[in-house]
Each structure stands twice: as C-alpha cells, then as structure tokens.
C-alpha cells in the first residue's frame, strides 16, 4: 500500500529533475517556480479545507505576513533573512491561534467570514503602513542568504523549490495517514463520531489552522526573496480566492490535486493571453465548466474514472 501512495511523488520528482533541460528559456523556469510556490501553499491550505473541512478565505493574509516580515525586517532592521522568515512564521502562527481559538467553537460560515475579515485587515495594514511597507507601491526585498550561501538566479531557485515541494508532498502524504491526520479527516467526516473516540475537535482544528498559516507564511517569505519585490497584492482578497480555487479545482482532500490545481491555475492566465481583454471571461468560463462537470475536482474525478482512489 505505501508503494502506490508514493508513486505520484516519484513521478513528480522525475518530472522536476528533467524539466529544466526541456524548458527553452528562463521565462518558463520562472513559471515553473511560481507553480511550485503556489503548489506548496495550496498543499497546506488543502490540509485545512479538504482534509479537516475548515474553510479559510484569508489565507493570502498569512502569505502576506511572511512576505512582509521578510521584506521589512531585513530592509529596515537588518535582520538576517532566516531570522526574519522565522519571525514571520511565528507571527502568522500566533495570529492564527488567537483568531482560531474563539472561532473554532463555532461552525462553517463564521470561520469563512472571520478568515475573510482577517485577510482583508492584513492587506489594509500592509497598504496603509507606507513608511514601513512602501504602501501600494510595494518594496524591494534583498536576496535570500542563508549563512554565507546566497540563492540567486532561476536555476538555483528552481532546485531549491523542487526540494521544498517534494519534501512538503512527502510530509503531507505521511501526515494524512498518521494518527493526527486520521483524526483530522474523521472530524471532517463526522465531528460527533470523532469526539466520542476521544478527538479534541477544537484542538485539532486549531492545530491544522496554525500549521497551514505558518506554512503559508514561510512560503510568502520564499516568494518575497525569489521575486525580490513585494506588493500588497500578495496579501489581498483575490489572492486568497485564487488559492482556494486551486484547492477546489485540483480536488479537495487530494494531495496530488493540490499540485495539479496550482500548476493549472498558474499556467492558465499565461495560456489565455491570446484572448486579449477577454482572458478573465475565458478564465471564469473554464472554472465554471470544471465545477459543473467535475465538482469533486480534477484529480479525484479522474482517479475515480480510472478505478483508483
């Protein structure tokens, strides 16, 4: 059984290893890197939405916290990139825990509204604290230097992110099949049934919310360093929706679906540039089409079609 579980992981590893040699130029390498960054964030978000059944409509807020922690602390306070990154992750985690504690006692829509509000507040703060963040214009971020080694150029970033993505995939696959992960899926399947076997539901929801927030923040930091510039768009509502859409299109509660969703929705706007001015309409139509004919998302639908779960 473990063999089949990791087959996809091996396939992805092979694709990642060969890809740079097939891509004609850095434009495509850059696209691949952005796909991988999104895939990681979506993976964490899918643990929360797909597996634990808890919605977050403000996840870009946590990405923004990481991105701006890295930008502001390194630029204005000359922290080391690693320390800034960890501070951002800590901040995102603490914030998530504070917000989650009262909200997870309630259900569904309250969480959606509260996370939505949280995301918007973070994005407003980032936009308005211009002295620190550069406001709507954004601000530059120094290169990511770990100890004496500095990551630069698309090639290096590509390999670093390949490593992060593979590690995240492996850890996620492990997690959902561990006692913690089963408890998480069980509370999604039947909250009361999970309670009577001893699952402290509030604690588990909190843990996975904090976990995915911290992960989003770390990936936000990585994005900021990779792009070398950060704007408030990283934290805004549309980015949150984009992330949730990737989860849904790829497939809720599907690890590989997270990757497929991120890859497709990162590539789609590029593929649609030929529609000149009608990209958004085409984009929306494709999403609607997907949801009508594959409501469970791409990967679960195709897996069911070919007889595998």
């Amino acid at each position: 059984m473990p063999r089949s579980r990791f087959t996809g992981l091996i396939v992805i590893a092979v694709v990642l290893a060969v890809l740079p040699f097939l891509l004609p130029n850095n434009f495509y390498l850059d696209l691949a890197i952005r796909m991988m960054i999104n895939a990681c964030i979506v993976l964490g978000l899918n643990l929360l939405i797909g597996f634990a059944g808890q919605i977050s409509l403000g996840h870009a807020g946590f990405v923004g916290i990481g991105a701006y922690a890295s930008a502001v602390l390194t630029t204005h306070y000359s922290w080391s990139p690693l320390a800034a990154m960890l501070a951002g992750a800590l901040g995102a985690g603490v914030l998530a825990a504070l917000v989650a504690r009262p909200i997870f006692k309630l259900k569904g829509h309250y969480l959606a509204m509260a996370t939505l509000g949280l995301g918007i507040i973070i994005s407003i703060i980032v936009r308005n604290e211009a002295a620190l963040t550069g406001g709507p214009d954004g601000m530059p971020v120094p290169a990511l230097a770990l100890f004496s080694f500095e990551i630069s150029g698309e090639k290096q970033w590509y390999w670093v992110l390949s490593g992060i993505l593979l590690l995240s995939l492996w850890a996620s696959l492990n997690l959902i099949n561990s006692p913690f992960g089963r408890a998480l899926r069980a509370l999604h399947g039947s909250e009361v049934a999970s309670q009577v076997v001893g699952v402290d539901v509030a604690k588990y929801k909190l843990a996975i919310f904090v976990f995915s927030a911290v992960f989003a923040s770390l990936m936000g930091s990585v994005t900021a360093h990779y792009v070398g510039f950060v704007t408030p768009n990283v934290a805004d509502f549309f980015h949150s929706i984009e992330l949730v859409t990737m989860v849904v299109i790829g497939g809720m509660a599907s690890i590989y679906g997270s990757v497929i969703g991120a890859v497709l929705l990162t590539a789609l706007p590029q593929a649609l540039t030929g529609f000149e001015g009608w990209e958004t309409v085409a984009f929306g139509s494709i999403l609607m089409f997907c949801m009508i004919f594959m409501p469970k998302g791409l990967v679960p639908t195709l897996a069911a079609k070919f007889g595998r779960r």
Partner: protein
Amino acid sequence: MALLEVSNLTKIFGGVRAVQNVSFAVEAGIVYSVIGPNGAGKTTLFNLITGIYVPSEGQIRLDGRDIAGVAPHELARFGMARTFQNLQVCMNMTALENVMVGAHLRLDRNLFKGALRFPSIARRDAALREEAAELMRLVGLEAFIDAHADAMPYGALKRLEIARALAAKPRVLFLDEPAAGLNPKETSEVDILVRKVADSGVTVVLVEHDMKMVMNISDQILVLDYGRKLAEGSAAEVRRNPDVIAAYLGTHQ
C-alpha cells in the same frame, strides 16, 4: 459499587422534559438495556450519559467519578465508547481507517512525528492495521476490510460503528439501536455479537426496539415512558410488569 450510577437525571428542552428524574445503576460486565416507546427519551438519556448533552439536573457517576457535563472526548479517556442510532461513519475514509480512528487515544498523535513518519509511528500504524482488520472480522465485516466506507451497505455500516467503538478498548459500550433497519438475519448476528462483546468483559448499555433481541441478551432492563422510569428488572420481570404492558399495548377500558 456499580460501574455506572445515574441519579435524578433530568433534561429539559425548552418546555419539554425529555428525561425526568431517572435513576439507575449498571453493574460491571452485564448487558443493560433501555427500552421504551418512541419518544420515551432513550436516545436523550444516551446523549446525556455520553456527554453530547449537558444534563439540566442530576448526577452521572462512572466508577464513582461525577461525569455529568464532561465533554465526549474526555469521557473517551475514562473508557466510554458509543455508536449512533443515525449512522456516524466517516464517509471520507476507508472502512479500516474508520476502525483505526477508534484507537485514537491509544496512539502517538504528534503532528510532526506523523508528518516525518517516525519509525515508531509507522510500526504502530502497521500493527494497528492488523488489529483493526481483526476487529472487522470479529463483527463479521471480513468482506469489507479493503472497502471504502461510502461503498458499504447500511447493515455493514452499523457493524462498522461497533468495530470502531471496540477499537477504543472501552470498559463500557453504549449501543444506540444497533439492530435498527436490519433484517432478521442481520439482527440475530448483532445479537450474537453483543453477547460476545459482553462476554469479553465489556459492559454493554443498549437502546433497542427489537424486543426479541432485548429479551434474549439483557441481564437487566430499564423501561422509560415519557421521559420517566417506568420499570426496571430482568427480562422476565419487565415482561410481567402491568405498567410496561400498558405503555406498549395500551390499557383495557
């Protein structure tokens, strides 16, 4: 001292007294059944004891410890397990995983150890898989060991809940209508299963409508009517009790 002692338990929903002043005691190792007409308050009583509802009044003692109003996940620690009248199976998981979740409290549930697949976690999970498959065989689900929960028929899901509850290694097991919706053959299988569970030393508290089953397997029976205790005793005593006959069949006028 009895394993479970309930005294003067009352639950009021708005103006409705769903359970009023009910007292009883369950000795360890027996099969104790709760019966009564529809709406008598049987499931409410179960939900009070297993922590789903908070009692309006009264005490519930497990091993002498007051557990009234304690959350369900805490009660699981004290050795309490239950099944549900309306199925509560996790349809997003396989049958085997549903049973494995039952063992939740007996496992190392650390998030990071799980994500990094520590050897200790992998070993324990492999052993648990065997254990869960064994439990599925015990409840007669050997045909569904590799099945996904959403591909199983109703009767099998009822037994899957029992297997999940047993995976917790409970001291007292609450079964809420385990035979509801089952055909006679399946009912007699559940009948045998409950006896088997009780013989293994687990105290069973049962809510059931199937009178044949109740009379067959119960050591002690509590009869509820309109939320009140109507009678208590052995099967033979309850069957002869005129109040019980009146509640079930109506009175002669």
